[in-house]
Structures are given as C-alpha cells and as structure tokens.
C-alpha cells in the first residue's frame, strides 16, 4: 500500500514540478526579456485570448480529473479490509494506546504483528478524538468516542515503526506515541505464547455473555424468543422497519446498548438495554465473542 500511495505522490510531484518550473521559467524569461528599456519586440498580435483561456481550463481539468480518479481508487483499497484480516482492538485514551490481540494479550503503546498477514484494527476512544497513525504504512484513522472506526494494513517488512496520535488530544498529545513491531510469523507465535493472558478476548466475552444474562435469551434452549447469534456477524440482518443492515461492530454495539433502535424482523423488542451495565472493555469482549461464533450461514430458529 505504501508503494501505491508513494506512486501517486511522485506523480503529483512530477506534475507540480512541471507547472512550477514552467511558470517560474516563463516569469524569469519574460522578466529578463521584457525588462524596461530592453529592445525586445513588443508588438502584440491581436490573437484571441478566449482560445488560450479555453486551453488552460481544459488541459488542467483533464489532468486533474485523472489524478482524482487514480487517488480515489487507491483510497478505496485503503479503506476496504480484505476478508482474511485478523482483528486487533484498539482503545485510545488520554494519552496512551491500549491494544488487544484476539488471543487476549494486551499491550500498551506497542503493537506486535506478524509479517505478511492483513491486520484490521477496530478502534474506539474513551475520551476525546485521537487518531491512529503509522507513517510507514501510510495509514491514519481518527478514533472517536462512542463509535467504532477501523483501518487495516499488511506489513511487508519486519522492523519497528512509529505509531503516532495525529489528532490533537490535549497536553500530552505528542507523548501519545508508540511503535508497531513487525515480526516473523514464527517469532510472533512465540512472542504471543510468551506470557499469554489466560483468556482470549472471545473467551472472556463468552463468560460475560453468561454472567450478563445474554445467554438466558439467546441460547438455543432458552424459552424467550430471541435470535440465535451464531453467524450473525458480518451478515445482512432484516429489520422490523424493512431495512436490511449488515451486522458490523456498530450494529452489535447498538443492539446491546440501544436494542430498540434496530429490532430484528420477526422478533419482539423485549431485549433490555445494557447501557450502564457494560463498559467499553467488556463490550469489546462480547463483540469478539459474537464474532467468534463463526461466519457460518445464519441458523433460523
């Protein structure tokens, strides 16, 4: 990805250099040639200015639209994560980054990732807006409170790279930095095994699912009529209102905090809100659990 961004950048530099030099050259050339008192020929031919104007509207327009399309295509790919990406959860807060691996390992201001695998970050903030920025990967995404944003990358070279907070977030904004460490997959596995927290995100989510009482309704054996959650994640869900939405993090989060806002077609809005009973950290875990329920085709009860 970095290469593709740099390619556009270089193209734009070439384009800019061309125009800058062309204009500076012309100005200096005219300045010398037509300086006051010089003997240059100043008779003007009555040529049509309109043609010139048209040309220098039309040519830049074509070039510029070409650049726009190119940059937008690359952006589109920057924006869409591939399906095989594995998930890391990011929590920004004044003034540190908390990163959680799917296996449950938690890091502060450091992110270890294996070489060659696509990584998708699901991010939220506990307070103000931050921005997750790794210059070497050419990625940046604001991290907002009460909302999930995501960004992805695929590291292509081992090494240690800067991680910055790019959105001004208060006094120690410039201290909200860290590093991304890209490791050989083998090294990564052993790093991961080393001091692994007893539980993965999904496993703690499974526990919460029981202790919070979700399973009381969403379990196969439950007496309450509630949808099974297996395979919900990432799939379209038809709503009472007739809309069809994709069950992404935001949707699951809203289902838990604002169940009334999106009622699944064919169900009663009996699910209580868990607003105030579940915190950001736990939410992430429950979401991880629901994701882990597999992407198999949805089972209708």
């Amino acid at each position: 990805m970095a290469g593709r961004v740099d390619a556009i950048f270089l193209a734009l530099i070439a384009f800019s250099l061309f125009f800058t030099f062309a204009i500076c050259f012309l100005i200096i050339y005219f300045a010398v040639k037509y300086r006051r008192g010089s003997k240059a020929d100043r008779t003007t031919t009555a040529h049509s200015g309109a043609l010139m104007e048209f040309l220098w509207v039309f040519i830049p327009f074509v070039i510029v639209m070409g650049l726009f399309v190119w940059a937008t295509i690359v952006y589109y790919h920057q924006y869409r994560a591939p399906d095989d990406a594995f998930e890391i959860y990011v929590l920004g807060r004044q003034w540190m980054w908390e990163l959680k691996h799917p296996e449950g390992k938690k890091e502060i201001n450091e992110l270890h990732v294996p070489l060659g695998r696509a990584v998708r970050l699901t991010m939220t903030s506990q307070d103000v807006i931050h921005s997750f920025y790794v210059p070497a990967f050419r990625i940046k995404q604001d991290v907002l409170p009460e909302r999930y944003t995501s960004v992805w990358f695929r590291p292509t070279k081992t090494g240690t790279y800067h991680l910055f907070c790019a959105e001004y977030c208060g006094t120690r904004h410039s201290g909200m930095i860290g590093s991304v460490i890209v490791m050989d997959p083998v090294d990564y596995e052993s790093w991961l095994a080393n001091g692994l927290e007893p539980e993965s995100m999904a496993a703690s989510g499974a526990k919460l699912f029981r202790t919070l009482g979700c399973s009381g309704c969403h379990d196969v054996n439950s007496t309450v009529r509630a949808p099974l959650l297996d395979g919900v994640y990432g799939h379209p869900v038809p709503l009472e209102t007739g809309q069809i939405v994709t069950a992404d993090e935001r949707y699951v989060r809203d289902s838990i905090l604002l169940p009334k806002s999106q009622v699944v077609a064919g169900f009663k809005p009996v699910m209580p809100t868990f607003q105030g009973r579940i915190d950001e950290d736990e939410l992430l875990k429950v979401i991880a659990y629901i994701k882990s329920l597999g992407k198999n085709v949805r089972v209708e009860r």
Partner: protein
Amino acid sequence: MSATIEEVETQRTEENYLTADYGIWSWFFTTDHKRIGIMYMISITFFFFLGGAAATLMRLELMTPGGDVVQAETYNKLFTLHGVMMIFFFLVPSIPAVLGNFLLPIMIGARDLAFPKINLASWYFYMVGGLFTVWAILAGGVDTGWTFYTPYSTMFSNTSVILAVVGVFINGFSSIFTGLNFLVTVHKMRAPGMTWFRLPLFVWAMYATSIILVLATPVIAVAMFLIILERSFGVGIFNPKLGGDPILFQHLFWFYSHPVVYVMILPGMGVVSEIVACFARRAVFGYKFMAYALLAIAVIGFLVWGHHMFVSGQSMYGSMVFSMLSFLVAIPSAIKIFNWTATIHKGSLSFDTPMLYALGFIGLFTIGGLTGLMLASLAIDVHVHDTYFVVAHFHYIMVGSAVMAYLGGLHFWWPKMTGRMYPEIWGKLSALVVFVGFNLTFFPQFVLGYLGMPRRYYEYPAEFQVLNVMSTAGASILAVGYVLPLIYLVLSLWLGPKVGSNPWNATGLEWQTSSPPPKHNFDVTPVVKEPPYAYSEERNLT
C-alpha cells in the same frame, strides 16, 4: 487629469483626510473609510506581531526534539494563540479591512462606503473581539488549537476556551459588516461610467470576498455559540454519551473555515493583478476570465469543506465528492496564474518593491496551491493529514502568498495612503529577506510531513531534528524580513520624500486624486471613460 508632480504639490492645500481633523477623538469617532482603514492597519499589525512572537517561541521549542524551552501546556497554548491571532485577527481582516477599506470607494469613484457608521462599528467589534481573546491569554491561555475541536474543547480542556470563543464570535460581526458594506458599495455607488467590467480586479476580488464573508461567517457564529452552550451547561450537543455528535462541530467549523481561506487569498489575487499590470505596463490578460475566476473560486469554495475530514470517519463516498470538488476549485486558480504570466509577456517590466512581492506571490502560491492538490488526493491525504505537510501547505499559501500580497499592496499604495515614499533599497532588501527566510522555514516542513511528523507536537523523535533546525533558522531570517518594513515604513512617515498623486504612473481612479486623498476622496465626482488597465506607450513616462 495627469498633472505633473510639481503642480500637484502646489495645487493642494494641506487639506487631506489626515489633516482634516485633529485629536484622538477625531479618529475614534471617524466615519471616514480611509481613517478606519488606517486604524485597522495599526491594530492588525499589533496582532500580527503577537502571533509572530508566539511563532518565534514555538520555533525555538522545536529546535530540539525534547521539550526544553516551554512546558507542553504552554506550547499547546502558543500554537492556539498563534493560529487564532493570525487567522481571525490578522489575515482575514488584513487586505479587506485595511487596503479594501481605504481603496475600494476611491477605486470606484465613491465618496465613502455605503454605511460609514457600520464601517466604524466593524472596527469596534473587531477590537472588542480581539480584547476578549487577549483576555483569554492573560487568563491563562487556550489550548484547543485554532480549530476548537469537540469534545476536547467542550469537555476536556480546562483553559479559557469560552473567552477565546466569545472573542472569535464577536469578531465575526466585524467581518459581516465589512462584507455587507463592500457588497452594497460595489453595487450601488459606482461613479458614472464605472460599469461592472470596468472595475479594477482588486474591486472584483473584494466583491467575491464579501460574498464569502457575508454567507460563511454566520455559520461559525453558530458553531461558536454551540460551544459556549455546551461548555457552560454540558447539555450534550457535542457529547456522544448524551447523543451529541462531535463530528457535527467539524462540519460547521469547516463550512466556515474552508471558504474563509479564500477570504484570505482572493484579496491577495486582486492586489497582485493591480501590481502586475502596473509594473508590466500592460492590461491584465483575460480580464473577464480573471473576474469570473474570482467568483468561481468563491462559489465552489463553499462546497469543499469535507476535505479537512477525510480521516474523521465521515462516509467514504462523501469524501470522494469533496475530493473531486477540491480538484475543481483549483482550475480557476490555475486560470489566474496563467493569466498573470501572460500579462508579463510583452510588457515593459520594472522591478520596484511591490512587483518583487507580486512575483514572489505567484511562485509561492503555485507551490502552496499544488500541494493543496496533493492534500485533496484521498490516498495521499490519509497519510499526510495532520502532519507538517499540511502546516507547510497552508503557510505557503497564507504566509508565502497572502502576507506577501498584503506587503506588496502596502508598498504599492503606501505613497497614496501617506503621501510619502519609503526607501526603495530597503524595500527590495526586505522583500528578498522575506522570500529567502520563508522558503527556508517552510520548505523543510513538506519533507518533515511526508516523513510522518505530526503537527501540534511539542516533542518529536530525534530523527526529525535536522529539518526542524533548518526551519527554525529560516524563521529567524523571516522575522528580520518582517521587522524591517515595520521600521522603515514608520520612519518614512517623517523622513520619506513627498510624492505626487501618481508616483507609479498607474491607471485607476485612486491615482487621480491627490496623495493623501482629500477627505471626500474627489473634489469632483469622476466620470469613467475607459476600461481598467489602459496602459499605453504615452503613459510609460518613467
């Protein structure tokens, strides 16, 4: 009409706008647009040096990677102060409120602006707004950045945000009053024969600027008002926990602040058109296209605000539309650059101080604008957003172009405003110093930005130091370049040689009345019989 210099000097009695009245109150209660322009000039100079002093401290701090000169809190307050002062209290009012105020009525042959009292009120609003902001600084400063992003500004910052926001809010009225006055004046008060397409481009620029001022400023007033509400009462407008949306603030803010960048540059384009035509002794090439381009920039400029929010989490397709429109707004700017170049072609060029600034403007605006295109490219902006690349982009346009144009205009019309000439040698020297210092300060920042140095950083990784030291060195040269004109322009008020009505042999109504102009601008209302920039061989006297 073209009297020789000696004649003018004997003809004129001492009666001009400066000597028509004496005493401090004759200034504070004046409704004469020329005096109000002078009052604006003095006040914006004060705020410029205030903002400049903050920049000086920032650059000192950034000389080393660690934090040593000031504390992190102080640094954050410094760049906020710097941005707020430079944008709201220096650059937005600079050319419109100083040169526009002074010249616009004279250029169209009117005796004053349409609403002289509102014009005076605009200066008072400006000063009260400025004082609130200075008060905010004295009360401990503000640390939100000039963008006041929520929820930081509403819920987390514990500095004097409200005072500063009130200052910006009040200052908004001054912009609106100025814009309103200009619009009505251009529409209704042109002298006989001064048709729309005989207006100097400077007037066109003021007209386009005024449209933006009048339509965009009320929106920032709303945004600032909502910040005050939210910060005082915590009602949840920008608090996502209560259903508010912090991004909404960004939309409101940029809906104003993007168009307003054109408030800062269009007047500069107007000034440069006047200067280039005069010192090339040629009519501006493609005059009508130049006028339409100004209007086009003003109109399209309203539709691109989302390009500041590409990574904020706004919808992807929204970003694409904003990106495309940002590319479009570059086209009329390109027209202007090409037409200026074509104006020089086959001219008869002299390189007096104003011309040096104007040529500097063209070069630096090209660079600043083309890097704006890079920012408008989605894939690139994701990388360079909120890095020094952006900082370099807007300094190239705002310092390199807009301030250059302001200085060029000031030198060009200085003899008209004061009746005295500054020392040409010093003028040329400081134009050169500014140009060199400027590039040394801000070019390294493009590199820094692409390498990934985020902005608003008080400390930074050591690998960025070399470029930062270059930048700081440049800033000190730049400071010299700005202090020099201050000194020699002020001194010229007493020491400068007196000049006649038209020292540059320029066309334009302002050069047909005496220097300094009489209180009511013209003894007889002029009648315009020719298009602007009617430079010809006979006029090439000097």
